[in-house]
């Protein structure tokens, strides 16, 4: 994994988002260090309770800060964020505390995940090698977004740096595991997508009426061990909300 040299690449970078936001970007490519910096910087902004901040969120390598522009102007907020950026080397920050490891049983290929062959081909792997690669990968919840509780996971090896489709697949089901650009996404609801559907899980990542509506937090880690279709059906029947997925605490 490449380590960015912030000063020479022009990062971190602060840019505007629409009328009421600023985006602090740590890299224009996904790196482990940039993602770690992102998680740490968001935590610091939340902790610092800057004036006029309405909410924060993260993408893969950026922190979004939405604020009340009638209280604090863009220039002032930019100054406050720049000052925080200058305080330390965010690329060497630690991961957040209280993270968990999720193991989520997954069916690869077949009728439940019809684009495994196509994705393996683009990655230059046989189907067997592709399943081996994906089911042995331990990935981080790099960010949550797009839809409720939906994680972007990675990074995967460079062989999985395959493009999105230019046309959308009309619909993949909730629990679909899809791949593109060295990342996995695990869908929390049925959705159209440009990513390729390689695996199917039975986990429900967003349960609006549950005491804990969102299963994951950024920084959590996930594994997707391969199971047979018969085993998958047994697991999802026995455990309709999690499909046999198990979470354990990660020690710091």
């Amino acid at each position, binding site marked *: 994994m490449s380590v960015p040299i912030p000063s020479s690449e022009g990062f971190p970078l602060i840019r505007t988002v629409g009328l009421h*936001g600023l*985006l602090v970007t740590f890299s224009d490519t996904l790196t482990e260090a940039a993602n770690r910096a992102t998680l740490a910087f968001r935590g610091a902004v939340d902790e610092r309770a800057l004036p006029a901040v309405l*909410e924060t*969120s993260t*993408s893969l390598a950026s922190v979004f800060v939405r604020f009340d*522009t009638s209280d604090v102007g863009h220039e002032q907020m930019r100054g406050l964020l720049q000052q925080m950026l200058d305080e330390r080397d965010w690329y060497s920050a630690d991961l957040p505390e209280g993270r968990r490891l999720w193991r989520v049983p997954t069916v690869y290929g077949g009728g439940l995940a019809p684009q495994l062959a196509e994705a393996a081909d683009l990655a230059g792997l046989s189907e067997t090698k592709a399943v081996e690669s994906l089911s042995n990968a331990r990935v981080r919840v790099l960010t949550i*977004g797009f839809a409720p509780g939906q994680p972007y996971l990675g990074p995967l090896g460079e062989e999985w740096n395959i493009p999105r*489709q230019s046309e959308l697949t009309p619909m993949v089901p909730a629990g679909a595991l899809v791949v593109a650009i060295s990342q996995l996404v695990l869908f929390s609801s049925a959705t159209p997508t440009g990513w390729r559907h390689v695996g199917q899980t039975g986990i429900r990542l*967003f349960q*609006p009426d549950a005491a804990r509506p969102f299963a994951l937090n950024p920084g959590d880690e996930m594994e997707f061990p391969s199971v047979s279709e018969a085993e998958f059906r047994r697991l999802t029947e026995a455990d309709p909300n999690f499909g046999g997925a198990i979470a354990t605490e990660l020690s710091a």
Partner: protein
Amino acid sequence: MSGLLVQRIGPVASIQDLGRPGLLGQGVSQGGAADVRGIAEGAALLGQSPELAALEMGGIGGEFLATEPIRIALTGAPMMASIDGSPIVWNASHQLEKGQILSLGAVRKGVYAYLHLGGGIASPKILGARAAHLAAGIGAAVQAGDTVLAGADKGGPVGQVLPVDPRFDGGELRIVESFQSALFAEDLRARFSDTQFQRGTRANRMGVEMLNDGPGFAAEGQLNILSEIISPGDVQMTGDGKPFVLMRECQTTGGYPRIGTVLPCDLPKVAQAPLGAGLRFRWVSLEQGLEAQQKFEAELKSLPRSCQPLVRDPADMQDLLSYQLVGGVVSATSDPFEGE
């Protein structure tokens, strides 16, 4: 408890308020009413808080039986409206007596109409709001057979009317540059604002398709950029360079690049643009955008002061009639105030 029994309703009806801000970090976009002006107008007409929920109907209205006396207001895209068969004025508040039937037809222009109840709609809050967010699996469409219950109504006026803010047939959309605008060449951005678009067939609470005759608006290397934060109003280019304006119920992050962000105050115009309506984008500076948005918010706050009584004074009535008749909402021979 007052309420309306839904006897018939279109397929795109849901309870909406101003949505649930603050959950972007968990992937939940704010959502809420497609046309926030419609929500604010209904609140002003009934003299209540704009945070209360109303029924949003896309394209087609429905038939509603009052289970108890109840105050209502109708805003947003104008529909043919009547109480027990007698036409009533749009963008106005009315009294429904127990057993009376409110009938709302198809929209005459625009897309989303709002039915407000005195006391608001008393559905349970999920994650802090009542707004259905169907894309996120929160809430459900309102269907025939449902009863829409009203909250406690502190009482207030009926027979109030607000002038209609024109936003139901497309027009100009102000757009600011955002953090991905630079991915699009300068001449392409200029061509974007020189292009006349039509609203396409793919349009819902998440996004609205923009069609044009000329070439598309693809960014360089756009299939491989990192997924990034989305704000409502972002104009996203799909792989073939076709623009979609992302709406309040859009996803929170996405990988397709965005050329800029339509001002929040111009989003009602996008939501309310009917199929085929002409739309154009005009670039404005961040300062101009903030100023326009501030003006819009001040205007919404002042709506209660703009409410006028629906009076029978012939001089005033002439005004109201002419405004109603522009689109032929009611026939020239029927009395729009019958049934008051």
